[in-house]
């Protein structure tokens, strides 16, 4: 057989990445959003290296610097770009550290929720029958409650703390992943290559992990990005309310919450800047997720 039959001389991996990038970059806004998110990610990862100060190092923080407005100087001449909070901590540094906490909680909980959700969704679609009905009913029931309510109930039951917050977020989010995974897996399970795998006696677990799961990944990635944004905003809400993360690990939500009392006295910067950072993070993730979803939607293809 002629090998010039296939015109794709490039290796499949790079060709695929190139195609993904060219489809993605058709929407300029999404590209901008992606760049913004990458900057935020960079900041979060290298927070300790690029922060001007360590806001949680008690030896450098003094109450004398409390509530300085943005761009004000303190007695030693250091400029605080975004001002300081009620305890004298540099807002910019607090913001960087806060981004780190918010992002890691969001991403970590998203990852666990994806694993749990995909497991239940794919196995429900594959086995069908009563098992599928039970799992999907639980998913439906859970999704009919507002996510904040479910999270509050779980935190009320288990108490505060970083692990418990992540647990609560996972228990809220798994249902979204399960639903998407099941829809995708239903389509894949009916395809003939799954029949072929059964014919070859490959074993149910192997078929689900090796054959069905890889083909369900695109929609899961889309849900993953959108859900990560959702998780970050949910965690922010919980922290703002004083539940969720402890004071020693302030996420953006907690910073907003802490600064809330000062808004009335005109020291807006203590709440607003974390709020803006949160907004930009969530919007950029959502824009990237929207573009990913449009890319994978075959009906929108020309």
């Amino acid at each position, binding site marked *: *057989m002629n*090998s010039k039959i*296939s015109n794709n001389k490039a290796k499949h991996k790079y060709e695929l990445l190139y195609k993904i990038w060219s489809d993605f970059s058709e929407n300029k806004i999404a590209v901008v959003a992606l760049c913004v998110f990458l900057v935020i990610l960079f900041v979060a990862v290298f927070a300790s290296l690029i922060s001007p100060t360590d806001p949680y190092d008690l030896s450098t923080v003094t109450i004398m610097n409390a509530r300085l407005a943005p761009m004000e100087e303190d007695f030693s001449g250091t400029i605080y770009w975004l001002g300081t909070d009620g305890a004298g901590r540099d807002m910019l540094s607090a913001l960087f550290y806060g981004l780190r906490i918010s992002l890691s909680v969001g991403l970590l909980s998203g990852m666990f929720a994806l694993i749990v959700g995909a497991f239940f969704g794919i196995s429900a679609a594959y086995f069908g029958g009563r098992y599928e009905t039970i799992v999907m009913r639980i998913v439906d029931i859970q999704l009919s409650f507002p996510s904040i309510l479910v999270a509050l109930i779980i935190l009320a039951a288990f108490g505060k703390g970083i692990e418990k917050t992540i647990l609560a977020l996972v228990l809220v989010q798994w249902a979204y992943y399960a639903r998407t995974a099941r829809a995708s897996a239903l389509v894949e399970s009916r395809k*003939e290559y799954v*029949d072929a795998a*059964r*014919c*070859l006696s*490959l074993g149910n677990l192997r078929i689900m992990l090796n054959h069905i799961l890889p*083909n369900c990944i695109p929609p899961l990635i889309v849900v993953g990005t959108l859900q990560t944004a959702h998780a970050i905003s949910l965690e922010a809400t919980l922290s703002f309310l004083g539940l969720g993360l402890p004071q020693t690990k302030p996420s953006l939500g907690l910073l907003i919450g802490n600064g809330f009392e000062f808004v009335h006295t005109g020291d807006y910067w203590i709440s607003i800047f974390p709020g803006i950072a949160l907004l930009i993070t969530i919007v950029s993730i959502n824009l990237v997720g929207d573009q990913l979803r449009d890319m994978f939607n075959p009906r929108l293809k020309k």
Partner: protein
Amino acid sequence: MQNKILEVHQLSKKFIKSLDKTTKVINWLGGSYKEEVVHAVDNVSFDIMQGEVVGVVGESGCGKSTLGRMIAGIMPITSGSISFKEKHYAGFLDNQYQQNHSIDLKIQMIFQDPFSSLNPRKKVLDIISEAPIHHQLISKEDKKNFVAEMLNKVGLNNDAMARYPHQFSGGQRQRVGIARALAVSPELVVCDESVAALDVSIQAQIINLFLDLRKNLNLTYLFISHDMGVIEHIADRIVVMYLGQVVEIAPTNEIINCTNHPYTKALLGGVPTLDTTRKVYEPIKGEIPSPLNPPSGCYFHPRCKFATEKCKVEKPTYKEIAPNHFSACHLND
């Protein structure tokens, strides 16, 4: 003397759509909703001899694909039995969870749609070698050589190994599917409309490949198709199905020259051929009935030219009307 390789005995498959809770309540209150039952395959019996090609032909709703899947072990049966080389395996009955079952891989299947029958995320190398490695028929080191050998058998180049399904044409994908099935050394191959989705010129290539493989590897085929022309060419015996039932079984030349059942006659006569003397078609009238609501008596009677009163009421008996020639028609009584 040929050995019997497969025996299908009174095999049936029913699809039941049971009533949901609401309709059950309505029934309890005096309504009369019935469960919807489709007899996809209804009491089918036949044998396949070693080395034979048995063709199964019929139109939509006749159950030939369902029959093929039950024989290949990927669909549970409702009743009846299937035996491979005297060993009864009968798939598994409806009320058990689906299991993967393929009589030690001796029965394999080639599918219809070359586009969905290969996993788009796996390289050809993995597609073909996955099952033999999993079942420890070959070792991981031998993977490449083994796959090269398989590709060679189906007429593909070695460089196909590193590619993904979307880089191939329909005919080539079908070859990969055949290589995947052959990788586990089956004895009986079920071909479910395996050439229907291919262009005419590629169809000929794949049919020739099947003929070659049969000779070289001593395979037995159950060839399912709606295309009488292809079946006539490749099959030794033909099974004609209509709405889940077998209406006629006979060796190919008997089916063509001494056609018995009116439906078989319609299938043979109503098919366009390369005969340019513009013939007037004698198509049979009527539509294929819905499997949910089959006609009474003989299923074919609404469309049959020779139908009598008896045909409307009584089911014809399936019997041997000549050596090795079976048919189910009242006209034979």
